[in-house]
């Protein structure tokens, strides 16, 4: 994990290469275009926020990027490779790892076991090893999982069942698992929703640390304070289309964005 992160952060300094690029990404559900010709670009080392009112297509966008649903049209390129038609587990293998809205965890497993599953792609495993090894998990995998728990501040919760963790910790555990999969691009789906100010502040600080260690972050979030304080660039979706794009300051003063969020009346009142 460390080596990859270090080499990535070095390459980031040299050039901010395009990591993720969608062209004309479209997904229809029946007659509804949930995502409509979206061109999304994420450069290596960025923290990009994807925002928009409810039903704007943010989560559909995530599902498309992570391979859970197939686009009706358009392409997704990750690090130059076309990943449009890949299945979820193949997408993860390329280094594009997502988390889920709400607390999607392996509830009946411990924190450590959850993170060990996050290591899935990087573990040596075979039927022979399963049958003849005396150990359940190699010590290095356990050590690495504990490292990730430590990094995310969950070290003391390693042996708790996931379902017994407080809400905030459950959300962070979801991030820890994604980190264990060694992402190059981390897709966070509403990482701080339902958290209090203190908790969300800590998670957003964690997101920054993750980025500083060389992982690019694309996040969907409704908590504007968190988004504005963390993201360097924001893409606003509305009715499945890109409405605006730019720095937090640009986006938050954009008339079209204000209209989408607050309705036309207020924009007129301000204008």
């Amino acid at each position, binding site marked *: 994990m460390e080596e990859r992160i270090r080499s990535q952060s070095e390459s980031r300094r040299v050039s901010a290469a395009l990591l993720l690029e969608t062209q004309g990404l479209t997904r229809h559900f029946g007659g509804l275009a949930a995502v409509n010709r979206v061109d999304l670009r994420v450069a290596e080392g960025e923290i990009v926020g994807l925002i928009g009112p409810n039903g704007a297509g943010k989560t559909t966008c995530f599902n498309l990027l*992570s391979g*859970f649903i197939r686009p009706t049209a358009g392409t997704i390129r990750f690090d130059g490779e076309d990943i449009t038609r890949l*299945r*979820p*587990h193949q997408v*993860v*293998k390329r280094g594009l*790892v*997502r*988390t*889920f809205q709400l607390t*999607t*965890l*392996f*509830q*009946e*497993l411990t924190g450590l*076991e959850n993170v*060990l*599953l*996050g290591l*899935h*792609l990087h*573990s040596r*495993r075979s*039927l022979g*090893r*399963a*049958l*003849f*090894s005396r150990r*359940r*998990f190699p010590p290095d995998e356990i050590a690495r999982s504990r490292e990730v728990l430590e990094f995310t501040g969950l070290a003391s919760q390693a042996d708790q069942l996931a379902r017994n963790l407080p809400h905030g910790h459950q959300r962070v555990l979801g991030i820890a*698992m*994604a980190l*264990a*999969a060694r992402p190059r691009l981390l897709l966070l789906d509403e990482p701080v929703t339902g958290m209090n100010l203190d908790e969300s502040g800590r998670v957003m600080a964690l997101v920054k640390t993750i980025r500083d260690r060389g992982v690019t972050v694309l996040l969907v979030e409704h908590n504007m304070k968190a988004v504005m304080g963390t993201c360097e660039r924001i893409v606003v979706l509305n009715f499945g289309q890109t409405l605006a794009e730019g720095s937090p300051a640009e986006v938050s003063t954009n008339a079209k964005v204000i209209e989408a969020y607050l309705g036309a009346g207020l924009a007129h009142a301000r204008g």
Partner: protein
Amino acid sequence: MRRLRVGVLIVLGLLLLLVPPLGGDYYVHVFALVFTNVILAASLRPSLTCGQLNIGHSAFMSIGAYASALLAKNLAVPFEVSMLCGALVAAVVGLGIGYPSLRLRGVYFAMVTVAFVEVIRLIAQLWVPLTRGMSGLSGIPKPNLLGVTLATKASQYYLALFLMLLTLLILWKLESSRLGLIWKSIGMADNLAQSLGVNIANHKLLAFMLGCFFAGVAGAFYAHFIRFLFPPEFGFLMATNILVYNYVGGRGHFAGPIVGAAFLSLLSEPFRGSAYETIFFSIAMLLTILFLPGGLITLPGKLAELRGWKSASAHSPSPAA
């Protein structure tokens, strides 16, 4: 705690070794069938852990039984080879049926497996030149292991015990490895498992085929032990029984299906083959769902909890309550 458990297991194992010399042929027969049921129940567990409701396990037992019996009877193949062939045929058929249908979830997959049981039963019934159909396949040789024919019921009992222990050992090792954790993860949240890079289709298929393989082993032993195969025996009823073993025993632990199979097959022994057998299994299932949703294996914990609660309330009557 761990020592205690190992000790209990060793004592239990020794007791099982002593059944043939101490019990009569009747007990030997009954226990050998219990061992087959344990293999069947335990081999269904990986698939259930992945969240796939398989109500067709008896079909694979049937396939293993017929394949092994026909090989031994018609080609004089020794038991160790015919059993392996039977198990492999069951696993390959499992691959054929599992590959397309494991994409289905919940009740849809269950329906495919139910239909499959009937298909296999009908094939066994209608392919008369090969299986003798409804006349039943008789004259199956006794298990011939490494050149020695196991003529006595007692020796066949030990064979069954050995096969059961070997099966349980393999399944236990797999379940407690990373593979078992992956199966559990698929059962709990398959979308999350996928998002961590787990190829859930392949893992479900592996768990399913593994179950089919050991169901084939159970079938092969059964064929050479009873020495008579009758298609309706491996029907829907037996398939549901295997499922009931898992639920009554408990889904939460590896011991669940073992306890369930042993408990239910011993208790249902007086009704074996009669109409009451179905009623017995239904009642057992209903009672479990109502009173012990976690299965029999949660009974000790429940009792301890009850006792602790009683003594706690006796010592310190809480004013808040």
